[in-house]
């Protein structure tokens, strides 16, 4: 049998992957429109479904690439943030009784998330977040992405991972108690 965890991870990974690709595209279009960077779209010989956006010169390419990478990172960070908020406030195992009662009153109990669902989502979003940081780090070494953006991205990713680790710690303590 295929492990349920892997199937669950695949299920949880599709939407974040689409969101990151969309963020990259919108970041690129946004930067091109705001800074007036001319570009052309070309087909490819291999992977024809994937077009390539060509910029007239290197400077335009650098600006567009930086802003689109930033947009991609913001999307990854926003997704992780959403999961962290859910883990902190709406986690089934340690939701505050007052909040639970309030949600029940408002018929919003669907917001309460079980650990199984939450941790699979967190694993995917944190993987995407760190992979985006790694991508930006390599891009900075190649002198494409500004190092300031990569440093900020690293600090944000490290802090988010730390906040998530606190929640995991809390969960382990609770499971020990029961």
């Amino acid at each position, binding site marked *: *049998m*295929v*492990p349920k965890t*892997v*199937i669950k*991870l*695949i299920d949880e*990974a*599709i939407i974040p*992957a689409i969101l*990151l*690709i969309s963020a*990259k*595209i919108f970041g*690129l279009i946004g930067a091109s429109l705001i800074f007036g960077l001319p570009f*052309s779209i070309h087909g490819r010989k291999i992977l024809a479904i*994937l077009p*390539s*956006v*060509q*910029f*007239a*010169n*290197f*400077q335009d*390419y650098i600006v*567009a*690439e930086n802003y*689109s*990478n930033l947009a*991609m990172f913001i999307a990854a960070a926003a997704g992780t943030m959403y999961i962290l908020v859910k883990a902190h406030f709406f986690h089934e195992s340690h939701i505050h009784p007052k909040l639970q009662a309030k949600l029940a009153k408002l018929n919003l109990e669907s917001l309460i998330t079980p650990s199984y669902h939450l941790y699979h989502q967190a694993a*995917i979003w944190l*993987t*995407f977040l760190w*992979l*985006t940081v790694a*991508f930006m780090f390599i891009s900075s*070494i*190649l*002198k*494409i992405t500004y190092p300031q953006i990569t440093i900020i991205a690293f600090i944000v990713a490290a802090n988010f991972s730390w906040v998530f680790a606190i929640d995991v710690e809390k969960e382990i303590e609770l499971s020990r108690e029961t």
Partner: protein
Amino acid sequence: MKKKHFLYTLANFSTFMVLAAIVAAPLYFASKFTQVAGVKSQSTYLIISQAEKFPGMKFSQDGTTYSLNLPNSAEAYLAVLILNNPTNQSRTYQIESSDGFFFGDNLDEKLKSISLPAGASVPVSVQSKDNSEVEFSVK
């Protein structure tokens, strides 16, 4: 029984591959989506002029020879041009000039040859002693 075991292994492997593909897809897309026009040409380097940042300086090109008209020949001009490696592999470049061109912006270490990783850039500086019309080519 053996066939079933093989099918389980295959199913497990395929599932992991699908997961890896989904996770890698956005980054593959991000790295391949944008390009600089002309990168696919035979050119092994790109020269980007920064001459407009230096008042009175003029940049011109004749084939593979690049010329600069310096406002003051006695001064050193750092990062007047940028050389970029647009290829997808590391390359070594050599400056051919008798007019004081060098890679980098360090006057104490005037590099005539440099190895650049794929996509990387390096500034080109000049410190001419007497000529105001200086030229160089890259190999």
